[in-house]
């Protein structure tokens, strides 16, 4: 995957398939510790105990259309390439947390990429799901929740392309103001 935003898009697909109604995406750029942390939490079906240790194996997947599942293995690979690791914890019936850490300044750390595009696309494509996005940098915090969007913009449809573009610009400008990686497409 060319950017971490695409890995995030991929992992969130797992949450959607697990029938999560609440998905939270947290990104923290901690320059003091040279760390980038990405955490994706959902309230979906969870991962059964017998699978939890094997999910980062590319030959383990719950899909029936094919025998390979690359989402989690690729995230693990990218995090380890950048001197970090990926931890997956889950409680069947309650939800799953995927947490990946990276050395912020590592030369092999993938750029964050178009995170604004990913977040707006996720909200548009899954209007019934509650998304919480929170991005923390040493300069500030930006957060966005789909519930906030729906309550503030009831007459707008998340299917409205010009609204989505405005929303994406809104996210980009706020990320720029806190000096976040991924603020520029």
């Amino acid at each position: 995957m060319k950017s971490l935003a695409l890995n995030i898009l991929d992992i969130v697909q797992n949450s959607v398939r697990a029938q999560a109604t609440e998905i939270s995406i947290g990104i923290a750029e901690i320059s003091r510790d040279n760390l980038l942390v990405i955490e994706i939490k959902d309230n979906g079906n969870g991962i059964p105990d017998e699978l939890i240790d094997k999910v980062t194996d590319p030959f383990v997947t719950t899909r029936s259309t094919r025998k390979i599942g690359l989402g989690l293995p690729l995230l693990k690979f990218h995090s380890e390439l950048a001197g970090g690791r990926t931890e997956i914890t889950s409680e069947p019936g309650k939800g799953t947390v995927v947490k990946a850490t990276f050395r912020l300044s590592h030369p092999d750390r993938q750029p964050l990429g178009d995170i604004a595009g990913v977040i707006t696309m996720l909200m548009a494509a899954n209007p019934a799901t509650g998304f919480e996005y929170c991005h923390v940098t040493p300069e500030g915090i930006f957060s966005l929740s789909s519930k906030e969007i729906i309550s503030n913009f009831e007459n707008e449809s998340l299917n409205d392309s010009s609204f989505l573009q405005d929303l994406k610009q809104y996210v980009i400008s706020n990320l720029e103001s806190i000096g976040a990686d991924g603020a520029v497409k």
Partner: protein
Amino acid sequence: MSLADLKKKRDELKSGLNLRVNAIDPETHVQVKVAMATCGIASGAKEVMEFFIEQLDRRNIQGVVTQTGCMGYCYAEPTIEVTLPGKEPVVFGYVNLKRADQIIERYIKTGELVDGIIPVNYETIHSKE
């Protein structure tokens, strides 16, 4: 920019526009589903989805663009499934932005079939009893 600023901007914009019908009606709306699994994302499905959302709106075509999981055609990603009103869904593979444009101009607008269709409605001797 705060949410209040965004809201103000939208209100100013809406005052000059006719509000479009928001209800989705399969009788008149085109449905485009973009496969968004790892193979799709790695091959550019996100850009394809953004393209469809923007272009259907720009070309005034009533439609809904959603994402779906792996359809099993990983070798042909990005793949999309297009359902024209009243017709069977058709799956297209190798959808880059140029082909997406052709699909909108030819298949969605006029029903003319475009290269790169992945046949799904065949029966093999194994599936017959």
